[in-house]
């Protein structure tokens, strides 16, 4: 099952699975889960910078997705829709303590260890620098520069204006560059 990335409608496989899942077909939903869990978990990891929280958030996303399937219209990629749920739930779950924890070396070691284990070929210096960004900047940068959403899509996913996205991304890149230059 491959999703298109050129803005075209989702392929028939995903559409059929969503339709079946909406009718209560758990096997169909399991297929959707299998196809998207790694992607959702990657975003959850980067938003939470905490392996345990990321797993909880990932579960929350799919439980919410099951309950909100009726709201999925198919005008966006299913992965994009899941990203939106992830961002919204992460706002509710995650608090400043996680941001502060990201600056503590012990938690940073746990986080980068989890990244290395679950994301082959992870750019650890980049991920460490990302983890230390303020949450909204990090969210905007991850959605736009890593996940490849346009500024408009990122704004919609975050519930902010495009101008705010642009500002967050600009500041995030500056901070990232500074940290990466410092650390070599």
């Amino acid at each position: 099952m491959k999703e298109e990335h050129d803005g075209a409608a989702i392929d028939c496989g995903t559409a059929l699975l969503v339709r079946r899942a909406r009718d209560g077909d758990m096997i169909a939903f399991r297929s959707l889960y299998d196809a998207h869990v790694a992607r959702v978990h990657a975003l959850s990891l980067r938003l939470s910078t905490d392996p345990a929280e990321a797993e909880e958030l990932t579960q929350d996303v799919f439980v919410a997705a099951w309950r909100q399937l009726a709201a999925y219209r198919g005008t966006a990629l299913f992965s994009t829709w899941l990203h939106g749920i992830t961002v919204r739930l992460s706002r509710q779950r995650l608090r400043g303590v996680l941001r502060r924890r990201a600056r503590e070396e012990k938690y940073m070691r746990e986080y980068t260890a989890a990244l290395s284990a679950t994301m082959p070929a992870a750019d650890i210096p980049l991920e460490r620098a990302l983890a230390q960004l303020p949450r909204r900047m990090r969210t905007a940068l991850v959605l736009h520069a890593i996940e490849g959403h346009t500024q408009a899509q990122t704004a919609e996913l975050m519930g902010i204006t495009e101008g705010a996205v642009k500002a967050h991304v600009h500041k995030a890149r500056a901070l990232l560059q500074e940290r990466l230059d410092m650390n070599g």
Partner: protein
Amino acid sequence: MDELSKRLRSAGHEAVPGRDLWPEVDARIRSPRSQRWKHAAAAVLVFGLGVLAGRGSTADSPVGSHAAASATPLHAAAAVQRAGSDYVAAVARLRDIGAADEALRAQAYEAALGVVAVTAQEATAALDLRDHAALVEEARSAHAAASQQVALLVRRSDQ
């Protein structure tokens, strides 16, 4: 494209969880949602009204004596208990709606949940007021409206 942009573009999009998360997702999806939200909704309502009743008994309240006369903590607590029991009983009847009326049941649950959410919000917002008698009265009105709404939904489902 600058070096940082290249590194960001190359950053991975996928991270397979270290353990299988599906069993817990499956369990949560399959657990009876009606039970969970019914209990949570009733708890929010009863707790919120109970808090209001407790605040209404504050000795240094500027309208403490008035509150005591019109709505003593004991009266308010009793009202909360009756209201809570009625509400939970009304919502529990939603379980009796047959499988053939699944769509109606789902709508009833959603509507009832919405009413409870509004009720909880009103109770919470009312905590900002200084007039404790008004607090208790607002909470009672909100609860009565919520109970009526649920009863109406249940009656409709029985037709």
